[in-house]
Protein backbone atom coordinates (compact mmCIF):
# COMPACT_ATOMS: atom_id res chain seq x y z
CA UNK A 1 0.00 0.00 0.00
CA UNK A 2 1.25 3.49 -0.82
CA UNK A 3 2.06 5.21 2.48
CA UNK A 4 0.64 8.58 1.54
CA UNK A 5 -2.39 9.90 -0.20
CA UNK A 6 -1.92 11.21 -3.71
CA UNK A 7 -3.93 13.67 -5.73
CA UNK A 8 -6.45 12.25 -8.19
CA UNK A 9 -6.30 13.10 -11.88
CA UNK A 10 -9.73 12.23 -13.21
CA UNK A 11 -10.46 11.42 -16.87
CA UNK A 12 -13.34 9.83 -18.74
CA UNK A 13 -13.81 6.74 -20.89
CA UNK A 14 -11.56 5.50 -23.67
CA UNK A 15 -8.15 6.86 -22.63
CA UNK A 16 -6.17 4.94 -25.27
CA UNK A 17 -2.53 4.12 -25.90
CA UNK A 18 -2.16 6.78 -28.61
CA UNK A 19 -3.05 9.34 -25.91
CA UNK A 20 -0.75 7.82 -23.30
CA UNK A 21 2.22 7.28 -25.65
CA UNK A 22 1.70 9.02 -29.03
CA UNK A 23 3.10 6.96 -31.93
CA UNK A 24 5.13 9.83 -33.35
CA UNK A 25 7.39 9.84 -30.25
CA UNK A 26 7.79 6.07 -30.05
CA UNK A 27 11.33 5.99 -31.44
CA UNK A 28 12.50 8.11 -28.51
CA UNK A 29 13.45 7.03 -24.98
CA UNK A 30 10.77 6.88 -22.27
CA UNK A 31 11.89 10.23 -20.80
CA UNK A 32 10.80 11.92 -24.05
CA UNK A 33 7.64 9.87 -24.58
CA UNK A 34 6.54 10.61 -21.00
CA UNK A 35 6.70 14.36 -21.66
CA UNK A 36 3.85 13.89 -24.16
CA UNK A 37 1.74 11.54 -22.04
CA UNK A 38 -1.96 12.51 -22.24
CA UNK A 39 -1.13 15.85 -23.92
CA UNK A 40 -4.04 15.51 -26.35
CA UNK A 41 -6.44 15.07 -23.41
CA UNK A 42 -4.93 17.27 -20.71
CA UNK A 43 -2.03 19.50 -21.79
CA UNK A 44 -1.29 20.30 -18.10
CA UNK A 45 -1.00 16.67 -16.95
CA UNK A 46 2.74 16.19 -17.31
CA UNK A 47 3.48 19.62 -15.84
CA UNK A 48 1.32 19.08 -12.76
CA UNK A 49 1.48 15.36 -11.94
CA UNK A 50 3.68 14.47 -8.94
CA UNK A 51 5.03 11.15 -7.67
CA UNK A 52 2.34 9.41 -5.63
CA UNK A 53 -0.59 10.84 -7.59
CA UNK A 54 -3.37 8.54 -8.77
CA UNK A 55 -5.07 8.32 -12.17
CA UNK A 56 -8.81 7.77 -12.18
CA UNK A 57 -10.78 6.96 -15.34
CA UNK A 58 -13.86 5.28 -16.75
CA UNK A 59 -14.21 2.44 -19.25
CA UNK A 60 -11.43 1.07 -21.42
CA UNK A 61 -8.36 2.71 -19.91
CA UNK A 62 -5.37 1.83 -22.12
CA UNK A 63 -7.25 0.33 -25.07
CA UNK A 64 -5.33 0.11 -28.34
CA UNK A 65 -1.72 -0.74 -28.97
CA UNK A 66 0.58 -3.21 -27.21
CA UNK A 67 3.12 -0.42 -26.74
CA UNK A 68 4.02 -0.71 -23.11
CA UNK A 69 5.42 2.80 -23.06
CA UNK A 70 1.78 3.75 -22.37
CA UNK A 71 2.14 2.13 -18.92
CA UNK A 72 5.84 2.89 -18.58
CA UNK A 73 5.23 6.64 -19.08
CA UNK A 74 2.80 6.68 -16.13
CA UNK A 75 5.29 4.79 -13.99
CA UNK A 76 8.07 7.15 -15.12
CA UNK A 77 5.99 10.16 -14.09
CA UNK A 78 5.53 8.61 -10.65
CA UNK A 79 1.86 7.71 -10.87
CA UNK A 80 1.21 5.44 -7.84
CA UNK A 81 -1.88 3.62 -9.10
CA UNK A 82 -4.65 3.67 -11.69
CA UNK A 83 -8.32 3.16 -10.89
CA UNK A 84 -10.70 2.59 -13.80
CA UNK A 85 -13.98 0.87 -14.52
CA UNK A 86 -12.21 -1.37 -17.07
CA UNK A 87 -8.93 -1.69 -18.99
CA UNK A 88 -7.54 -2.57 -22.36
CA UNK A 89 -6.30 -6.15 -21.92
CA UNK A 90 -2.70 -5.68 -23.04
CA UNK A 91 -2.27 -2.38 -21.19
CA UNK A 92 -3.52 -4.04 -18.00
CA UNK A 93 -0.81 -6.71 -18.17
CA UNK A 94 1.84 -4.18 -19.20
CA UNK A 95 1.07 -1.94 -16.22
CA UNK A 96 1.38 -4.82 -13.75
CA UNK A 97 4.61 -5.86 -15.45
CA UNK A 98 5.98 -2.37 -14.74
CA UNK A 99 4.93 -2.61 -11.11
CA UNK A 100 2.11 -0.12 -11.57
CA UNK A 101 -0.98 -1.21 -9.64
CA UNK A 102 -4.06 -1.01 -11.90
CA UNK A 103 -7.30 -1.79 -10.16
CA UNK A 104 -10.80 -2.23 -11.47
CA UNK A 105 -13.07 0.13 -9.52
CA UNK A 106 -16.75 0.70 -10.26
CA UNK A 107 -17.00 3.55 -7.73
CA UNK A 108 -14.70 5.99 -9.55
CA UNK A 109 -17.51 8.54 -9.72
CA UNK A 110 -16.90 9.13 -6.00
CA UNK A 111 -13.49 10.61 -6.75
CA UNK A 112 -13.15 14.19 -7.98
CA UNK A 113 -10.18 15.88 -9.61
CA UNK A 114 -7.69 16.84 -6.92
CA UNK A 115 -9.17 14.58 -4.19
CA UNK A 116 -6.57 12.96 -1.97
CA UNK A 117 -6.73 9.17 -2.38
CA UNK A 118 -4.76 6.14 -1.23
CA UNK A 119 -5.01 2.73 -2.90
CA UNK A 120 -4.32 -0.65 -1.27
CA UNK A 121 -3.91 -3.21 -4.07
CA UNK A 122 -3.94 -6.14 -1.59
CA UNK A 123 -7.38 -5.40 -0.16
CA UNK A 124 -8.79 -3.19 -2.92
CA UNK A 125 -9.56 -0.46 -0.39
CA UNK A 126 -9.46 3.04 -1.84
CA UNK A 127 -9.48 5.78 0.78
CA UNK A 128 -10.72 9.16 -0.41
CA UNK A 129 -9.44 11.46 2.32
CA UNK A 130 -11.00 14.58 0.82
CA UNK A 131 -14.51 13.09 0.97
CA UNK A 132 -13.78 10.83 3.93
CA UNK A 133 -15.07 7.68 2.22
CA UNK A 134 -13.50 4.29 1.56
CA UNK A 135 -14.35 2.83 -1.84
CA UNK A 136 -14.02 -0.71 -3.08
CA UNK A 137 -11.81 -1.83 -5.94
CA UNK A 138 -11.01 -5.41 -6.99
CA UNK A 139 -7.88 -6.56 -5.15
CA UNK A 140 -5.02 -8.17 -7.07
CA UNK A 141 -4.12 -11.86 -6.59
CA UNK A 142 -1.09 -12.66 -4.45
CA UNK A 143 1.27 -13.65 -7.29
CA UNK A 144 0.74 -10.29 -8.95
CA UNK A 145 1.18 -8.47 -5.63
CA UNK A 146 4.50 -10.30 -5.24
CA UNK A 147 5.56 -9.19 -8.72
CA UNK A 148 4.54 -5.59 -8.00
CA UNK A 149 6.33 -5.54 -4.65
CA UNK A 150 9.48 -6.76 -6.42
CA UNK A 151 9.10 -3.71 -8.67
CA UNK A 152 7.58 -5.44 -11.70
CA UNK A 153 8.24 -8.45 -13.95
CA UNK A 154 11.89 -7.66 -14.74
CA UNK A 155 13.18 -7.38 -11.15
CA UNK A 156 10.88 -10.29 -10.23
CA UNK A 157 12.42 -12.59 -12.86
CA UNK A 158 15.88 -11.19 -12.20
CA UNK A 159 15.49 -12.39 -8.62
CA UNK A 160 14.27 -15.79 -9.83
CA UNK A 161 17.17 -16.30 -12.23
CA UNK A 162 19.70 -15.12 -9.62
CA UNK A 163 18.27 -17.61 -7.11
CA UNK A 164 18.49 -20.36 -9.72
CA UNK A 165 22.13 -19.50 -10.40
CA UNK A 166 22.91 -19.40 -6.68
CA UNK A 167 21.29 -22.82 -6.22
CA UNK A 168 23.27 -24.23 -9.12
CA UNK A 169 26.53 -22.86 -7.69
CA UNK A 170 26.05 -24.68 -4.38
Amino acid at each position, binding site marked *: MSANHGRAFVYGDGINTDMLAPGIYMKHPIATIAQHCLESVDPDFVRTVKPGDVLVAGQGFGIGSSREQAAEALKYLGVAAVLARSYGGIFYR*NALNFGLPVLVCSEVDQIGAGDLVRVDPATGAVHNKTRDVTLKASPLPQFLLDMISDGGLVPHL*EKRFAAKRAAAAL
Partner: protein
Amino acid sequence: MALTLAEKIVARAARRTHVTPGEIVTCAVDLAMIHDSGGPRRVAPILKRFGVGLWDPSKVVLISDHYVPAADDETRRIGEVTRKFAAENKLAGFYDSEGICHVVLPERGHLKPGMFVVGGDSHSPTGGAFGAYMFGIGATEMAGVLATGEIWLTVPETIEIEWRGTFGPCVVAKDVMLFLCGQLGMEGGRTQAVHFRGDAIRALPMQERMTLSNMTAELGGQTGLCDPDETTAAFIRAAGAEPGDVARWQSDPDAMPAECLRFDASALTPQVAAPHSPANAAPVADHGAVKIDVAHIGACTGAKIVDLRMAASVLKDRKVDPSVSLLVAPASHRDQEAAASDGTLQILVDAGATLLPNACGMCAGYNGTLEENVTCISSIARNFKGRMGTASANIYLGSPYTVAASAVRGRISDPREMLS
Protein backbone atom coordinates in the same frame (compact mmCIF):
# COMPACT_ATOMS: atom_id res chain seq x y z
CA MET B 1 -15.90 -32.31 -20.11
CA ALA B 2 -16.80 -30.37 -23.25
CA LEU B 3 -14.37 -27.61 -24.14
CA THR B 4 -14.47 -24.69 -26.56
CA LEU B 5 -11.58 -24.39 -29.03
CA ALA B 6 -10.00 -21.65 -26.86
CA GLU B 7 -10.23 -23.82 -23.74
CA LYS B 8 -8.78 -26.80 -25.59
CA ILE B 9 -5.71 -24.89 -26.71
CA VAL B 10 -5.15 -23.22 -23.34
CA ALA B 11 -5.55 -26.54 -21.51
CA ARG B 12 -3.00 -28.19 -23.78
CA ALA B 13 -0.55 -25.28 -23.30
CA ALA B 14 -1.11 -25.40 -19.52
CA ARG B 15 -0.51 -29.18 -19.57
CA ARG B 16 -3.97 -29.80 -18.18
CA THR B 17 -6.84 -32.04 -19.27
CA HIS B 18 -9.32 -29.19 -18.89
CA VAL B 19 -9.48 -25.60 -17.72
CA THR B 20 -12.28 -23.38 -16.41
CA PRO B 21 -12.78 -19.77 -17.51
CA GLY B 22 -11.54 -17.34 -14.85
CA GLU B 23 -8.81 -19.52 -13.35
CA ILE B 24 -5.21 -18.39 -13.73
CA VAL B 25 -2.86 -20.87 -15.40
CA THR B 26 0.73 -20.88 -16.61
CA CYS B 27 1.05 -21.77 -20.28
CA ALA B 28 3.98 -23.04 -22.33
CA VAL B 29 4.42 -20.88 -25.42
CA ASP B 30 4.72 -22.67 -28.80
CA LEU B 31 5.88 -19.60 -30.72
CA ALA B 32 6.78 -15.99 -29.96
CA MET B 33 6.68 -13.33 -32.67
CA ILE B 34 8.53 -10.04 -32.19
CA HIS B 35 9.04 -6.99 -34.40
CA ASP B 36 11.61 -4.23 -34.71
CA SER B 37 9.78 -1.73 -32.51
CA GLY B 38 8.95 -3.81 -29.44
CA GLY B 39 11.49 -6.58 -30.15
CA PRO B 40 15.28 -6.67 -29.88
CA ARG B 41 15.81 -3.02 -28.94
CA ARG B 42 13.57 -3.52 -25.91
CA VAL B 43 13.96 -7.19 -24.98
CA ALA B 44 17.73 -7.61 -25.44
CA PRO B 45 18.67 -5.28 -22.52
CA ILE B 46 16.19 -7.13 -20.27
CA LEU B 47 17.56 -10.57 -21.22
CA LYS B 48 20.99 -9.21 -20.41
CA ARG B 49 19.78 -8.21 -16.94
CA PHE B 50 18.41 -11.72 -16.44
CA GLY B 51 21.74 -13.15 -17.57
CA VAL B 52 20.03 -15.63 -19.89
CA GLY B 53 19.47 -16.08 -23.61
CA LEU B 54 16.35 -17.13 -25.50
CA TRP B 55 14.57 -20.10 -23.97
CA ASP B 56 14.27 -21.66 -27.42
CA PRO B 57 15.39 -19.67 -30.51
CA SER B 58 13.64 -22.23 -32.75
CA LYS B 59 10.34 -20.92 -31.36
CA VAL B 60 11.02 -17.24 -32.03
CA VAL B 61 10.25 -15.33 -35.23
CA LEU B 62 11.51 -11.77 -35.77
CA ILE B 63 9.99 -9.47 -38.38
CA SER B 64 11.10 -5.90 -39.20
CA ASP B 65 8.07 -3.89 -40.26
CA HIS B 66 7.64 -0.77 -38.09
CA TYR B 67 10.76 1.30 -38.79
CA VAL B 68 10.95 0.20 -42.41
CA PRO B 69 12.53 1.73 -44.37
CA ALA B 70 14.77 3.61 -41.96
CA ALA B 71 14.11 7.33 -42.17
CA ASP B 72 16.73 8.85 -39.85
CA ASP B 73 19.66 7.98 -37.57
CA GLU B 74 17.40 6.76 -34.78
CA THR B 75 15.45 4.35 -36.97
CA ARG B 76 18.64 3.20 -38.73
CA ARG B 77 20.02 2.34 -35.30
CA ILE B 78 16.85 0.37 -34.49
CA GLY B 79 17.33 -1.59 -37.75
CA GLU B 80 20.94 -2.38 -36.82
CA VAL B 81 19.99 -3.58 -33.34
CA THR B 82 17.32 -5.81 -34.91
CA ARG B 83 19.67 -7.36 -37.48
CA LYS B 84 22.37 -7.89 -34.84
CA PHE B 85 19.88 -9.80 -32.67
CA ALA B 86 18.92 -11.98 -35.65
CA ALA B 87 22.57 -12.66 -36.44
CA GLU B 88 23.33 -13.68 -32.84
CA ASN B 89 20.37 -16.06 -32.43
CA LYS B 90 19.35 -19.04 -34.54
CA LEU B 91 15.74 -17.95 -34.88
CA ALA B 92 12.90 -19.89 -36.50
CA GLY B 93 12.69 -16.98 -38.92
CA PHE B 94 13.92 -13.44 -39.55
CA TYR B 95 12.13 -11.39 -42.18
CA ASP B 96 13.64 -7.96 -42.77
CA SER B 97 11.48 -5.50 -44.71
CA GLU B 98 9.42 -8.31 -46.25
CA GLY B 99 6.09 -7.00 -45.00
CA ILE B 100 3.94 -6.64 -41.92
CA CYS B 101 4.43 -9.26 -39.21
CA HIS B 102 0.81 -10.43 -38.97
CA VAL B 103 0.74 -11.15 -42.69
CA VAL B 104 4.29 -12.49 -43.07
CA LEU B 105 4.05 -14.93 -40.12
CA PRO B 106 1.34 -17.18 -41.65
CA GLU B 107 2.50 -16.49 -45.22
CA ARG B 108 5.80 -18.24 -44.29
CA GLY B 109 4.04 -21.18 -42.66
CA HIS B 110 4.70 -20.44 -38.98
CA LEU B 111 1.12 -20.90 -37.76
CA LYS B 112 -1.09 -23.95 -37.52
CA PRO B 113 -4.24 -24.92 -35.62
CA GLY B 114 -3.92 -25.62 -31.91
CA MET B 115 -0.77 -23.54 -31.33
CA PHE B 116 -0.45 -21.22 -28.31
CA VAL B 117 1.33 -18.13 -29.62
CA VAL B 118 2.24 -14.69 -28.28
CA GLY B 119 3.08 -11.68 -30.42
CA GLY B 120 4.66 -8.40 -29.42
CA ASP B 121 1.96 -6.36 -31.12
CA SER B 122 -1.67 -5.60 -30.40
CA HIS B 123 -2.90 -7.02 -33.71
CA SER B 124 -1.53 -10.47 -32.83
CA PRO B 125 -5.06 -11.92 -32.57
CA THR B 126 -4.68 -12.19 -36.37
CA GLY B 127 -3.18 -15.64 -35.78
CA GLY B 128 -6.53 -16.76 -34.39
CA ALA B 129 -7.75 -17.02 -37.99
CA PHE B 130 -5.71 -20.24 -38.19
CA GLY B 131 -7.27 -21.75 -35.08
CA ALA B 132 -4.22 -20.82 -33.01
CA TYR B 133 -4.61 -19.05 -29.64
CA MET B 134 -2.52 -16.00 -30.49
CA PHE B 135 -2.57 -12.74 -28.57
CA GLY B 136 -0.58 -9.56 -28.09
CA ILE B 137 1.67 -8.66 -25.17
CA GLY B 138 4.05 -5.79 -24.40
CA ALA B 139 7.82 -5.90 -24.76
CA THR B 140 8.66 -6.47 -21.10
CA GLU B 141 6.25 -9.36 -20.86
CA MET B 142 7.75 -10.66 -24.12
CA ALA B 143 11.21 -10.55 -22.52
CA GLY B 144 9.80 -12.73 -19.76
CA VAL B 145 8.44 -15.18 -22.34
CA LEU B 146 11.70 -15.22 -24.29
CA ALA B 147 13.61 -16.02 -21.08
CA THR B 148 11.23 -18.62 -19.64
CA GLY B 149 9.01 -19.91 -22.48
CA GLU B 150 6.01 -19.38 -20.22
CA ILE B 151 3.25 -16.86 -19.56
CA TRP B 152 0.35 -16.60 -17.10
CA LEU B 153 -3.13 -16.38 -18.46
CA THR B 154 -6.60 -15.96 -17.07
CA VAL B 155 -8.49 -18.74 -18.85
CA PRO B 156 -10.78 -16.85 -21.22
CA GLU B 157 -14.49 -17.19 -21.65
CA THR B 158 -15.54 -17.85 -25.23
CA ILE B 159 -17.73 -15.29 -26.99
CA GLU B 160 -19.14 -16.86 -30.14
CA ILE B 161 -20.06 -14.50 -32.94
CA GLU B 162 -21.95 -16.35 -35.62
CA TRP B 163 -22.69 -15.00 -39.11
CA ARG B 164 -25.28 -16.91 -41.09
CA GLY B 165 -26.15 -16.56 -44.76
CA THR B 166 -24.22 -14.80 -47.50
CA PHE B 167 -22.55 -11.39 -47.52
CA GLY B 168 -23.81 -9.09 -50.26
CA PRO B 169 -21.66 -7.47 -52.96
CA CYS B 170 -18.84 -5.24 -51.65
CA VAL B 171 -19.50 -6.38 -48.07
CA VAL B 172 -16.35 -7.86 -46.57
CA ALA B 173 -14.59 -8.76 -43.32
CA LYS B 174 -13.68 -5.12 -42.62
CA ASP B 175 -17.38 -4.20 -42.71
CA VAL B 176 -18.13 -7.07 -40.31
CA MET B 177 -15.59 -5.80 -37.82
CA LEU B 178 -16.52 -2.12 -38.07
CA PHE B 179 -20.16 -3.14 -37.61
CA LEU B 180 -19.29 -5.25 -34.55
CA CYS B 181 -17.18 -2.42 -33.07
CA GLY B 182 -20.16 -0.11 -33.60
CA GLN B 183 -22.59 -2.58 -32.02
CA LEU B 184 -20.51 -3.95 -29.15
CA GLY B 185 -17.98 -1.14 -28.60
CA MET B 186 -14.23 -1.47 -28.30
CA GLU B 187 -14.59 -3.52 -25.14
CA GLY B 188 -17.20 -5.93 -26.46
CA GLY B 189 -14.57 -8.67 -26.41
CA ARG B 190 -13.83 -8.11 -22.67
CA THR B 191 -10.29 -9.49 -23.17
CA GLN B 192 -11.91 -12.91 -23.69
CA ALA B 193 -11.67 -15.30 -26.64
CA VAL B 194 -13.86 -14.19 -29.54
CA HIS B 195 -14.77 -17.10 -31.81
CA PHE B 196 -16.12 -16.36 -35.30
CA ARG B 197 -18.43 -19.06 -36.61
CA GLY B 198 -21.21 -19.73 -39.07
CA ASP B 199 -21.52 -20.53 -42.77
CA ALA B 200 -20.78 -16.92 -43.81
CA ILE B 201 -17.40 -17.12 -42.03
CA ARG B 202 -16.62 -20.60 -43.39
CA ALA B 203 -17.10 -19.23 -46.90
CA LEU B 204 -14.37 -16.58 -46.40
CA PRO B 205 -10.84 -17.04 -47.77
CA MET B 206 -7.99 -17.12 -45.23
CA GLN B 207 -6.92 -13.50 -45.63
CA GLU B 208 -10.48 -12.29 -44.99
CA ARG B 209 -10.64 -14.42 -41.85
CA MET B 210 -7.33 -12.78 -40.86
CA THR B 211 -9.03 -9.38 -41.09
CA LEU B 212 -11.73 -10.57 -38.68
CA SER B 213 -9.20 -11.94 -36.23
CA ASN B 214 -6.93 -8.90 -36.63
CA MET B 215 -9.62 -6.42 -35.70
CA THR B 216 -10.62 -8.48 -32.69
CA ALA B 217 -8.01 -6.16 -31.16
CA GLU B 218 -10.39 -3.24 -31.81
CA LEU B 219 -13.29 -5.30 -30.48
CA GLY B 220 -11.35 -5.81 -27.24
CA GLY B 221 -10.99 -9.59 -27.48
CA GLN B 222 -7.76 -11.27 -26.41
CA THR B 223 -7.80 -13.42 -29.52
CA GLY B 224 -10.18 -13.93 -32.46
CA LEU B 225 -10.52 -17.58 -33.42
CA CYS B 226 -11.92 -19.08 -36.61
CA ASP B 227 -12.67 -22.79 -36.98
CA PRO B 228 -9.79 -24.48 -38.80
CA ASP B 229 -10.99 -26.28 -41.92
CA GLU B 230 -9.91 -27.26 -45.43
CA THR B 231 -9.38 -23.57 -46.34
CA THR B 232 -6.97 -23.26 -43.39
CA ALA B 233 -5.13 -26.44 -44.29
CA ALA B 234 -4.78 -25.44 -47.95
CA PHE B 235 -3.32 -22.03 -47.01
CA ILE B 236 -0.77 -23.62 -44.65
CA ARG B 237 0.26 -26.21 -47.27
CA ALA B 238 0.68 -23.44 -49.86
CA ALA B 239 2.96 -21.72 -47.34
CA GLY B 240 5.13 -24.84 -47.33
CA ALA B 241 4.10 -26.19 -43.93
CA GLU B 242 1.97 -29.00 -42.52
CA PRO B 243 -1.38 -28.08 -40.96
CA GLY B 244 -1.28 -30.91 -38.41
CA ASP B 245 -4.39 -32.40 -36.85
CA VAL B 246 -7.10 -29.97 -38.04
CA ALA B 247 -9.93 -32.22 -36.82
CA ARG B 248 -8.60 -32.12 -33.23
CA TRP B 249 -8.71 -28.33 -32.94
CA GLN B 250 -12.47 -27.81 -32.98
CA SER B 251 -14.86 -26.82 -30.21
CA ASP B 252 -16.63 -29.82 -28.74
CA PRO B 253 -20.22 -29.89 -30.05
CA ASP B 254 -21.69 -29.55 -26.55
CA ALA B 255 -19.19 -26.93 -25.30
CA MET B 256 -20.80 -23.91 -23.67
CA PRO B 257 -19.63 -20.48 -24.77
CA ALA B 258 -20.26 -17.64 -22.29
CA GLU B 259 -22.10 -15.65 -24.96
CA CYS B 260 -23.41 -16.44 -28.40
CA LEU B 261 -24.28 -13.57 -30.74
CA ARG B 262 -25.92 -14.24 -34.11
CA PHE B 263 -26.04 -11.98 -37.14
CA ASP B 264 -27.54 -12.19 -40.61
CA ALA B 265 -24.80 -11.73 -43.21
CA SER B 266 -27.19 -10.70 -45.97
CA ALA B 267 -28.40 -7.72 -43.91
CA LEU B 268 -24.94 -6.16 -43.53
CA THR B 269 -24.03 -3.12 -45.66
CA PRO B 270 -20.67 -1.41 -46.20
CA GLN B 271 -19.65 0.33 -42.96
CA VAL B 272 -17.57 3.43 -42.26
CA ALA B 273 -16.24 4.50 -38.84
CA ALA B 274 -16.02 8.23 -38.15
CA PRO B 275 -13.17 9.88 -36.20
CA HIS B 276 -11.81 9.04 -33.64
CA SER B 277 -12.89 5.46 -32.90
CA PRO B 278 -13.73 2.26 -34.79
CA ALA B 279 -16.81 2.15 -32.54
CA ASN B 280 -18.18 5.18 -34.45
CA ALA B 281 -19.19 2.85 -37.27
CA ALA B 282 -22.36 3.36 -39.30
CA PRO B 283 -23.58 2.46 -42.80
CA VAL B 284 -21.56 4.25 -45.47
CA ALA B 285 -24.62 6.28 -46.54
CA ASP B 286 -24.52 8.11 -43.21
CA HIS B 287 -21.18 9.70 -44.17
CA GLY B 288 -22.02 10.54 -47.79
CA ALA B 289 -21.25 14.24 -47.74
CA VAL B 290 -17.78 14.02 -46.25
CA LYS B 291 -15.11 15.22 -48.64
CA ILE B 292 -11.74 13.51 -48.39
CA ASP B 293 -8.16 14.59 -49.11
CA VAL B 294 -6.36 11.27 -48.69
CA ALA B 295 -7.44 7.70 -49.43
CA HIS B 296 -5.15 5.13 -47.84
CA ILE B 297 -5.00 1.39 -48.39
CA GLY B 298 -2.49 -0.11 -46.02
CA ALA B 299 -1.68 -2.16 -42.94
CA CYS B 300 -1.99 -5.80 -41.93
CA THR B 301 -5.73 -5.47 -41.78
CA GLY B 302 -6.28 -3.63 -45.06
CA ALA B 303 -3.65 -4.20 -47.75
CA LYS B 304 -3.25 -7.93 -48.24
CA ILE B 305 -3.65 -9.34 -51.74
CA VAL B 306 -7.40 -9.86 -51.22
CA ASP B 307 -7.67 -6.21 -50.16
CA LEU B 308 -5.65 -4.93 -53.12
CA ARG B 309 -7.91 -6.92 -55.47
CA MET B 310 -11.01 -5.37 -53.88
CA ALA B 311 -9.61 -1.89 -54.50
CA ALA B 312 -8.61 -2.79 -58.05
CA SER B 313 -12.08 -4.05 -58.92
CA VAL B 314 -13.39 -0.54 -58.19
CA LEU B 315 -10.46 1.35 -59.74
CA LYS B 316 -10.31 -0.59 -63.02
CA ASP B 317 -10.68 1.88 -65.92
CA ARG B 318 -11.24 4.71 -63.43
CA LYS B 319 -9.13 7.58 -62.14
CA VAL B 320 -8.74 8.90 -58.63
CA ASP B 321 -10.39 12.32 -58.20
CA PRO B 322 -7.73 15.03 -58.76
CA SER B 323 -8.34 16.43 -55.27
CA VAL B 324 -7.46 13.11 -53.60
CA SER B 325 -4.11 11.40 -52.92
CA LEU B 326 -4.48 7.63 -53.08
CA LEU B 327 -1.72 5.92 -51.12
CA VAL B 328 -1.27 2.14 -51.27
CA ALA B 329 1.14 0.21 -49.03
CA PRO B 330 0.82 -3.52 -49.89
CA ALA B 331 1.01 -5.52 -46.64
CA SER B 332 3.79 -7.84 -47.75
CA HIS B 333 6.36 -8.18 -50.46
CA ARG B 334 4.82 -11.48 -51.57
CA ASP B 335 1.37 -9.95 -51.77
CA GLN B 336 2.80 -7.08 -53.81
CA GLU B 337 4.42 -9.61 -56.18
CA ALA B 338 1.11 -11.42 -56.50
CA ALA B 339 -0.57 -8.10 -57.26
CA ALA B 340 2.09 -7.32 -59.85
CA SER B 341 1.73 -10.66 -61.61
CA ASP B 342 -2.08 -10.66 -61.86
CA GLY B 343 -2.38 -7.05 -63.03
CA THR B 344 -3.86 -5.71 -59.78
CA LEU B 345 -0.94 -3.40 -59.12
CA GLN B 346 -1.06 -1.92 -62.64
CA ILE B 347 -4.74 -1.08 -62.21
CA LEU B 348 -3.99 0.76 -58.95
CA VAL B 349 -1.10 2.69 -60.47
CA ASP B 350 -3.04 3.54 -63.63
CA ALA B 351 -5.81 4.95 -61.46
CA GLY B 352 -3.27 7.28 -59.84
CA ALA B 353 -2.16 5.44 -56.72
CA THR B 354 1.19 6.17 -55.10
CA LEU B 355 2.88 3.01 -53.83
CA LEU B 356 4.43 2.99 -50.36
CA PRO B 357 6.79 0.43 -48.76
CA ASN B 358 5.54 -2.98 -47.53
CA ALA B 359 5.47 -1.89 -43.89
CA CYS B 360 3.27 -0.56 -41.11
CA GLY B 361 4.08 2.95 -42.32
CA MET B 362 1.33 5.50 -41.79
CA CYS B 363 -0.78 3.12 -39.72
CA ALA B 364 0.74 3.78 -36.29
CA GLY B 365 2.19 7.09 -37.42
CA TYR B 366 5.70 5.66 -37.04
CA ASN B 367 6.89 6.26 -40.53
CA GLY B 368 5.28 8.87 -42.73
CA THR B 369 2.38 10.86 -41.34
CA LEU B 370 -0.70 12.69 -42.56
CA GLU B 371 -0.51 16.45 -42.98
CA GLU B 372 -2.26 18.77 -40.54
CA ASN B 373 -6.05 19.02 -40.81
CA VAL B 374 -6.51 16.56 -43.67
CA THR B 375 -9.47 14.23 -43.92
CA CYS B 376 -8.48 10.66 -44.73
CA ILE B 377 -10.35 7.43 -45.35
CA SER B 378 -8.24 4.36 -44.71
CA SER B 379 -8.49 0.58 -44.64
CA ILE B 380 -6.38 0.40 -41.44
CA ALA B 381 -7.74 -0.96 -38.16
CA ARG B 382 -8.01 2.01 -35.84
CA ASN B 383 -8.56 5.74 -36.17
CA PHE B 384 -7.68 7.12 -32.77
CA LYS B 385 -6.83 10.80 -32.67
CA GLY B 386 -3.22 11.13 -33.79
CA ARG B 387 -3.05 7.51 -35.01
CA MET B 388 -1.54 8.44 -38.37
CA GLY B 389 0.89 10.88 -36.77
CA THR B 390 -1.19 14.06 -36.82
CA ALA B 391 -3.69 14.89 -34.09
CA SER B 392 -5.55 17.39 -36.29
CA ALA B 393 -6.27 14.82 -39.02
CA ASN B 394 -9.71 13.24 -39.30
CA ILE B 395 -9.49 9.55 -40.10
CA TYR B 396 -12.44 7.52 -41.36
CA LEU B 397 -12.21 3.74 -41.67
CA GLY B 398 -13.69 1.62 -44.42
CA SER B 399 -13.08 -1.51 -46.48
CA PRO B 400 -10.70 -1.39 -49.44
CA TYR B 401 -13.81 -1.29 -51.68
CA THR B 402 -15.12 1.75 -49.84
CA VAL B 403 -11.74 3.50 -49.73
CA ALA B 404 -11.29 2.99 -53.49
CA ALA B 405 -14.81 4.22 -54.31
CA SER B 406 -14.25 7.28 -52.11
CA ALA B 407 -10.93 7.99 -53.85
CA VAL B 408 -12.68 8.08 -57.23
CA ARG B 409 -15.53 10.33 -56.10
CA GLY B 410 -13.53 12.58 -53.76
CA ARG B 411 -16.01 11.98 -50.96
CA ILE B 412 -17.01 9.01 -48.85
CA SER B 413 -18.94 6.75 -51.23
CA ASP B 414 -20.78 3.45 -51.33
CA PRO B 415 -18.79 1.06 -53.56
CA ARG B 416 -21.99 -0.75 -54.55
CA GLU B 417 -22.95 2.29 -56.63
CA MET B 418 -19.84 1.76 -58.74
CA LEU B 419 -19.82 -2.02 -59.06
CA SER B 420 -23.04 -3.49 -60.34
